[in-house]
C-alpha cells in the first residue's frame, strides 16, 4: 500500500474522532435551538464554565478567592479537601441546573416574543458574563483536568496497524473514549426525548409553543429543562476538551468550531449535528493534510466555514434541517 494513502487513512481516522468532539458541542446548540428557537452562543462558554467549576470543586478551591482576598485582605485559596471526580461531576451538574434556572428566570423569560437576533445577542451577553464570572470564581490560569479518563497513544491499534500496513497509527485513547461517550450520550438523549414524559413535552414545545401550552405543558419548566440538558452536554464537552488540552479560555472557542457543523447539519437536527461534525472533522484534517502545506498551513481556521458556506449555497437549510417554507 502506498505510504501517502496510509497517512491519509490515519488522518481520516483522527478527523472522525475530532468530528465527534465537534458534534458534542454542536449537540448543545441544537437542543436549545429546537426547543426555544434561541441560538445559544454561550454554549462554548458554558463548557468552559462547567470544566472550571469541576476542577474547582475537585480541588476544593474557594470560589471568588481572588476577589475576597483583594477586598478583605485575606489569603484564602483552598478549603483543603479533595473531592473525587464522580461526586464533583454531580455537584457541577447541580451548578449547571442552577445556572439554567437563573438564565431562564432572569433573562429568557423577559425576552419571550423578541426577534431571534435579540435573543442571540442576549446569549452573547451571557457568554461575556459567564466568562467573567468563571474567571472571577476560579481564577484565569490554565488548569489541568483529570477525572481518570485514559490518555495517550492506544498501543493495541498501533500494533495492529503496524502489522497490517507496516506503519502504526497514532490514535489517542481519549479520542476513543470520547467517541464512545458521545455515542452513549446521543443514545441517552434520543431515549430521553422518545420515551419519557418530559422528553415528549420537550419535543412538543419544539414543534409548536402555543399548541404545547394549550395541552398544559409548562413552557417555563421545559425551557429550564432544556437549558439544563444543554448544560449537561456542555459539561461532557468541557470534560473531554478540558482533559485533552487543559481548562483555559480557548475552550470557549470550540463554540466557533461547532457553528459550521451546525450549518452543515442544519440547526434543528440531532443526527445532522453528528454527521456534520464527522464531515467537518474529516474534511478539515484531510484538507490540511493535502492542501495545507501548499498555502501556508493553519487552514483549519477557516476551511470548515468555507465548506459549510459553499454547501449552504446549494442547500440553504443544511443537510437534515427542516425545509424552510416562506409565505407572505
Amino acid at each position, binding site marked *: 500500500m502506498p505510504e501517502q494513502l496510509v497517512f491519509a487513512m490515519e488522518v481520516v481516522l483522527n478527523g472522525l474522532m475530532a468530528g465527534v468532539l465537534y458534534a458534542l458541542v454542536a449537540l448543545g446548540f441544537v437542543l436549545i435551538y429546537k426547543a426555544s428557537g434561541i*441560538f445559544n452562543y454561550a454554549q462554548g462558554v458554558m463548557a468552559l464554565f462547567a470544566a472550571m467549576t469541576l476542577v474547582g470543586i475537585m480541588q476544593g478551591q474557594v470560589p471568588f478567592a*481572588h*476577589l475576597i482576598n*483583594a477586598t478583605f485582605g485575606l489569603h484564602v485559596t483552598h478549603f483543603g479537601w479533595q473531592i473525587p471526580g464522580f461526586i464533583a461531576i454531580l455537584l457541577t451538574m447541580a451548578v449547571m441546573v442552577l445556572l439554567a434556572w437563573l438564565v431562564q428566570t432572569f*433573562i429568557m423569560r*423577559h*425576552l419571550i416574543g*423578541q*426577534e*431571534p*437576533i*435579540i435573543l*442571540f*445577542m*442576549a446569549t*452573547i*451577553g*451571557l*457568554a*461575556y*458574563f*459567564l*466568562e*467573567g*464570572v468563571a*474567571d*472571577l470564581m476560579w481564577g*484565569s490560569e490554565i488548569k489541568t483536568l483529570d477525572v481518570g479518563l485514559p490518555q495517550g497513544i492506544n498501543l493495541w491499534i498501533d500494533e495492529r496497524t503496524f502489522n497490517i500496513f507496516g506503519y502504526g497509527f497514532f490514535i489517542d485513547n481519549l479520542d476513543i473514549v470520547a467517541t464512545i461517550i458521545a455515542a452513549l450520550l446521543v443514545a441517552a438523549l434520543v431515549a430521553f426525548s422518545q420515551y419519557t414524559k418530559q422528553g415528549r413535552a420537550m419535543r412538543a414545545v419544539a414543534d409548536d409553543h402555543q399548541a404545547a401550552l394549550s395541552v398544559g405543558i409548562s413552557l417555563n419548566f421545559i425551557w429550564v429543562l432544556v437549558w439544563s440538558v444543554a448544560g449537561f452536554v456542555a459539561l461532557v464537552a468541557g470534560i473531554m476538551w478540558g482533559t485533552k488540552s487543559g481548562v483555559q479560555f480557548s475552550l470557549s472557542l470550540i463554540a*466557533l468550531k461547532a*457553528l*459550521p457543523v*451546525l*450549518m452543515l447539519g442544519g*440547526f434543528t437536527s440531532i443526527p445532522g449535528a453528528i454527521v456534520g461534525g464527522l464531515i467537518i472533522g474529516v474534511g478539515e484534517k484531510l484538507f490540511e493534510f493535502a492542501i495545507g502545506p501548499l*498555502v*501556508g*498551513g*493553519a*487552514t483549519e*481556521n*477557516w476551511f470548515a*466555514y*468555507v465548506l*459549510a*458556506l459553499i454547501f*449552504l*449555497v446549494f442547500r*440553504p*437549510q*443544511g443537510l437534515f434541517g427542516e425545509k*424552510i417554507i*416562506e*409565505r*407572505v
Partner: protein
Amino acid sequence: MFYREAGDFKTSYVDDSQTFPIKFDRYRYYVVLVVAFGIIPFIINDYWANAILLPFLIYAIAAIGLNVLVGYCGQVSLGTGGFMAVGAYACYKLMTAFPEVSMFIHVILAGGITAAVGVLFGLPSLRIKGFYLAVATLAAQFFLVWLFNRVPWFYNYSASGQINAPERDTFGILITGPNASAWATYMFCLIFLTLSAIIARNLTRGTIGRSWMAIRDMDIAAEIIGVNPLKAKLSAFAVSSFFVGISGALFFALYLGAVEVGEAFGIQKSFLVLFMVIIGGLGSIFGSFAGAAFLVLLPVVLKVVGADMLGWPTDIVAHLNLVIVGALIIIFLVLEPHGLAQLWRVAKEKLRLWPFPH
C-alpha cells in the same frame, strides 16, 4: 417645550425634506458640529485623543456601516472584523506603494476595495438567510484574517508579519506615524465620520434605503412589489463594507499605527461592533453614535473607577469588566430591546410636552 414643531413653517419642498425637520433639533445639530470642529481640536491632548475620541470616531464609522447592513437591510453579519482588516491592509498597501498621494484618497480607495470584497462575501446572502447567513459571514472573518496572516505580499514581506503605518500627510499636515499631532488625527477622523453619517443618513431615507428596509421587513413581499433583492442586498453589503473599510483603514493608520491582524481584527472586533449597533439601536444613525460612545467609554470608566480610584488589581478589573459588559448587554436587551436610540426618542417625546403631562 423643546422639540416643538409649532411656529416652524415650511414654505418649500427643500425645507420640508431636510434631515432635521424640527428647529430645536437642527440648532442642536449645529451646536454639536461647532463644538466638534471648532472647539475640541484646540483643547485636545494625546490622552483624550487616544483613549476616547479616536476610538469613538472610528468605531462610530464602523457602527454606521454595520447598521446599514444589519439595522436597515436585516442581513446579520459577523464579518466586520475581517472587513476592517481588508480596509487596513488595502490602506497599508496603497500607503507604501504610492507615498506621495494624499491620505484622503488612500482611505477612500481602501473603502472602495473593502466594498468590492464585501459584495463578494455578500453573494451567499441571496440564498442564505437569518442565522445561517450570520454564521456564513464568519467564513469571511476567518478566511480574511488567515489570508492576511499567511500571504506575505499583504504585509510587504516584513519579518514580524505586522504592518506599520509609515508617516504620511495630507495637505502638508502629518497625520500618521508617531509624530502626528493629536488634533490632526482627530480632525481627519472627524471629517470622515461626519461625511459617513451624512451619506448614510441620506442613503437610508432615499429610494435605496427604502428598498433595504423593504427587504429587511419581509424579503418575499418586497420582491413581489418590485424590489430587486439582488440589487438591494448587494448594495447594502457594498455600502456597509465601504464604511467598515474606511474605519478599518483609520483604525490601523491613525489609531494603532502597527497592527497584528489576528489581534486587532479578530472575531472579538466583529462582536464589539455588533454590540454597538444593537445597544445603540438597530436602524438608527444616532444609535450608531450612541452605541460606539457607550462601549468605548465603559471600559475607560471602569478602569478609572476600579483600578485607579478603588485600587483593585488589574486582572480583577478586567474580569469585572467582562461581567459588567455582559450584564449591561442583557439588562439593555431586557429593558429596551430597541437600544439607546429608542430611549432618546422617548426622551424627545417627553421633552416636547414638558413641563405638562399631556
